[in-house]
């Protein structure tokens, strides 16, 4: 990042009732950055956000804001505002007063100034004419907009967003993603965004922080995270991926599933066991005679843009995304380009992910929605 460092988390540890939810987290957040904390339920992303907002105090470690330690600064003294997960709009106030709340609390008495700034905010979130509406009578998307306007009216240095789009339907989510990104660029406010939706994280962020079990797995740009995942966990969490056992024979040469491929990675030494990530869209389907590997088609699912094909290669189930139809229960060959291989050192997550033998969309959704709020 080219900007100035705005927030530093240094060795943050937090436990609830003896259960460690954040384990020695360190993270730098820059001015004008759109940073996303991404991870499954219970990974500690919301707790991290609450520590930055001042709603939790870390057991160990320091929170530095603009060069000053703010561990013990209460939320109302921080130049940070929050868009809460379920909006937390004040039900006793109308749209206008909800948005004006921050100004009134700060002691601003000039009604004209208040009115001007509330209208400016309403304009920004496309809610012109909604001033007198009661917040409980608004749709989810409209409440969301009021929550954003309310949080931005005090011109905070940082805006925290806790799964703000979680309750919206798909179409609205896509629109709001674009709007939020636009707002961040226009206002120049640092956005810290929490989500479990990898696609949302990749499409909006400057920086993505992948978290799991209270630890940071990887920090990087969306393309880095997608193309160069640091371990099997990240590779699996960020999109579909086949994660195959392999051996790095030498620089630019990797052996997997009994075949030696040319790749673009180096520096792993000779005959080193590694994890190899191959994204489903990077595998080409060819006739068996031309294939580098051969496999048996287990299932084919039409997904609109492409077919999702599960192929059994030597007992390992691969996922392949292809625009050409292949018939189920036939043999096919596959070819993989050298730059499609991503080589990772073995980690504690090796062998846990990346096989599609028990794959189903439903299972995926269950595990996504099953957890608690965090």
């Amino acid at each position, binding site marked *: 990042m080219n900007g100035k460092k705005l927030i530093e988390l240094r060795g943050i540890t937090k436990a609830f009732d003896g259960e460690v939810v954040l384990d020695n987290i360190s993270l730098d957040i820059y001015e004008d950055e759109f940073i996303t904390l991404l991870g499954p339920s219970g990974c500690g992303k919301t707790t991290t956000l609450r520590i930055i907002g001042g*709603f939790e105090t870390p057991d160990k470690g320091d929170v530095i804001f603009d060069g000053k330690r703010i561990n013990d600064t*209460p939320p109302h003294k921080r130049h940070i505002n929050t868009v*809460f997960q379920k909006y937390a709009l004040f039900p006793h106030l109308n749209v206008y007063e909800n948005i004006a709340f921050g100004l009134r609390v700060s002691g601003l008495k000039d009604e004209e100034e208040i009115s001007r700034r509330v209208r400016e905010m309403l304009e920004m979130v496309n809610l012109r004419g909604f001033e007198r509406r009661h917040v409980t009578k608004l749709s989810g998307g409209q409440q969301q907009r009021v929550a954003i306007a309310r949080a931005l009216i005090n011109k905070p240095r940082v805006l925290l967003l806790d799964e703000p789009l979680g309750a919206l339907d798909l179409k609205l989510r896509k629109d709001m993603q674009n709007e939020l990104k636009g707002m961040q660029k226009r206002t120049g406010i640092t956005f810290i965004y929490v989500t479990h939706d990898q696609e949302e994280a990749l499409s909006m962020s400057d920086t993505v922080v992948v978290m799991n079990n209270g630890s940071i797995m990887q920090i990087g740009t969306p393309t880095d995270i997608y193309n160069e995942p640091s371990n099997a966990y990240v590779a699996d969490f960020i999109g579909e991926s086949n994660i195959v056992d392999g051996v790095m024979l030498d620089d630019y040469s990797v052996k997997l599933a009994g075949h030696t491929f040319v790749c673009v990675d180096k520096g792993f030494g000779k005959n080193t066991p590694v994890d190899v990530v191959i994204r489903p869209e990077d595998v080409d389907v060819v006739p068996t005679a031309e294939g580098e590997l051969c496999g048996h088609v287990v299932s084919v699912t039409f997904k609109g843009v492409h077919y999702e094909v599960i192929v059994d290669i030597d007992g390992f189930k691969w996922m392949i995304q292809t625009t050409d139809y292949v018939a189920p229960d036939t043999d096919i060959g596959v070819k993989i380009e050298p730059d499609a291989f991503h080589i990772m050192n073995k980690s504690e997550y090796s062998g846990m992910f990346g096989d599609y033998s028990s794959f189903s969309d439903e299972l995926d959704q269950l595990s996504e929605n099953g957890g608690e709020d965090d």
Partner: protein
Amino acid sequence: MAARGTRGQGLMARAAASPHIVWSVLFIIAPLLFVVYYTFTDADGAFTTENVSRLFTSNYVLIFVNSVCLAFIATVICLVIAYPTAYLFSRMKAKRQRAAVLLIMIPLWMNFLITTYSWMTLLEDTGIINSALRRIGLGAAHMINTPGAVVVGMVFCFLPYMILPIYTVMSGIDEKLLEASADLGCNGWQRLVRVVMPMSLSGVVSGITMVFVPSISTFYISQKLGGGTFQLIGDTIESYFVGSAINYHFGAALSLVLMVLILISMAVMNHYTDSESGERTKMV
């Protein structure tokens, strides 16, 4: 078809409501009509406004004023005690909240006659409090048979009815709203004034109703702790229905006026709270 369906449903609904309607007519509307009938008739059953006009002699006006004043003071004291208590309760951990609410409920399970008698023995000139005061050399204070003793009795008996509705509303306030207000710059006091108070107003209104109404019409507390040195409306009404001065017609007139008085106070209060919440919208 559809029209018949709805008519059928309407009949069904009415049939289902009939026990309630019969009940209301028998035990609420009919007695009210009796009260009105007695108010405007004399012993011979002839129409008269004598009962009502007699109310506006200084003696009875004073009784009404006394009753309203004592009930008002008791209600204010209850509110002052109950509001912070309810707030503290609502911010406790769930387990402690249950225990705290139970402690408030226990006095309600005891017959309030017994509670009132206990206060008699506490407040008597030779009672426990005065004995203690004497022992530590402060000298006794005359407490029983004073308006103060009556107010103490009212507050003690009706305080739970103030705490519970306020607590119920407050515990329903989402913790996230308090966090949101802190996030937007509210310190502890501002959080209370800007979020908790306006959101708990409905609890305060029902609390006031539930304390003011029984306070203004009580006769037992004022008899036992007031010792007959002064009369409240409740005592006066009672005296016309039992005992030597029995007069249903005048007693009914007193009850009717008391009822109207209560309805007016409720209407005023509701109007006040409505305009409070309406004000915010008008400001835009």
